[in-house]
């Protein structure tokens, strides 16, 4: 079971990492924010899998912290006027 959970964790991490190509390609900054959002959710999933698989102390609490801050970056971007321009 441990091996399966570790494998699933690595798979999800790689998947959302591929999604980071959106950060490279854009075209608009809002697309990059979306890619970061997906990485955040995937990172939380990978963290939970890793934590349950290897019984790391604190893994679920780190996931809890990340979940609380999940919207923070995107909210900061939108509320500081980010989407108003800046596509390259």
């Amino acid at each position, binding site marked *: 079971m441990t091996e399966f959970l570790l494998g699933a964790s690595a798979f999800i991490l790689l998947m959302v990492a591929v999604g980071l190509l*959106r950060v490279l390609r854009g075209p608009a900054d809002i697309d990059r924010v979306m*890619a970061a959002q997906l990485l955040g*959710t995937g990172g939380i999933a990978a963290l939970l899998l890793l934590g349950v698989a290897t019984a790391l102390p604190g893994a*679920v609490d780190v996931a809890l912290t990340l979940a609380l801050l999940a919207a923070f970056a995107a*909210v900061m971007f939108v509320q500081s006027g980010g*989407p108003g321009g800046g596509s390259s």
Partner: protein
Amino acid sequence: MMLVGNIATVVLVSLGAVFFLAGTVGLLRFPDSMTRLHALTKADNLGLGLVVLGLLPQVDSVPGALKLVAVWVLTQLAGATVTQLVARAVWRGGGRS
């Protein structure tokens, strides 16, 4: 009982992983910001939801299980709000180049 739990874990976590795969493919392949947002929310909701559901049989304490569910609920809240904000920004034309 253990076996049933393990099977449930394998099935649900695998399903969740598939949703993350779908989310990534959608984010990369869909043509504009609105449709990409659509792909993103599926991975957010169902991907993480299924992974959490699948992990529940592996957790042996009730507080531990509740914490997992709390992580999912909080991510939902964040995801829903970000989707709203992004969609509104795209709608106002900020998302198009």
